[in-house]
């Protein structure tokens, strides 16, 4: 379950970010503060986008930045960050982004259930809207 690899303190709401790079840096910083990643991982997430495009915008309004396990993951973990104002990432269909799901995967297996949850939770439009409207990380955690 997604709750097993995130926590209330890894959820931030209504964060002020102007660009896609700033959004990824701020979400990455949550994982960094928890000791889940090394600082290099944040640069690696941005480098992936510069190299391969905005494929991390996985659905309308949702970006899931991540890099490879060996690029600085310490623990498998997820940070969730909702944005105060939507941010344009430059994706053909899914812009603008309102929710960042920052993923650090230590290996190829432990986060799989969480990925499945992500689709179920955030693919539910009503649930996504209530998460985006919520200010209290604890209540968002309970919704997961």
């Amino acid at each position, binding site marked *: 379950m997604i709750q097993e690899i995130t926590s209330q303190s890894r959820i931030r709401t209504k964060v002020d970010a102007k660009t896609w790079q700033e959004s990824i840096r701020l979400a990455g910083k949550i994982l960094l503060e928890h000791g889940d990643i090394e600082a290099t991982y944040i640069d690696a997430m941005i480098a992936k986008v510069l190299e391969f495009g*905005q*494929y991390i915008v*996985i659905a309308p309004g949702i970006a899931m930045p991540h890099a490879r396990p060996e690029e600085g993951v310490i623990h498998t973990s997820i940070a969730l960050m909702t944005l105060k104002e939507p941010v344009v990432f430059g*994706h053909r269909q*899914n812009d603008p982004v309102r929710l960042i799901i920052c993923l650090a*995967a230590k290996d190829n297996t432990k986060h799989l259930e969480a*990925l*499945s949850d992500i*689709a179920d939770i*955030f693919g539910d439009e009503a649930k996504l809207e209530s998460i985006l409207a919520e200010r209290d990380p604890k209540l968002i955690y309970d919704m997961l």
Partner: protein
Amino acid sequence: MVKILTVCGAGVGTSMMLRLFAQQILDKEGIEANIEAADVASVDPKSADWIITTSDIADVIRGADEKIIRIDNLTDKVGLRLALLAKIQEKAQ
């Protein structure tokens, strides 16, 4: 047995998600498939019958257009199911 590759930039996030959903869909249809997730740098288009990926990554993979199923909303399992089954039917004809 069909061989499917799901591809993304890192091989652990988007492609894993696609692998998971494609497996669920094909299991339900009773279609045997070997599905693997890969990162775009190491992908060999020739090694698969189909490749499922997002539009940005699809543009980077060369010489495999007819094999590629493009999915741009990963929370839309219904859309993935339709695209996947259409491709399978196309092959059966």
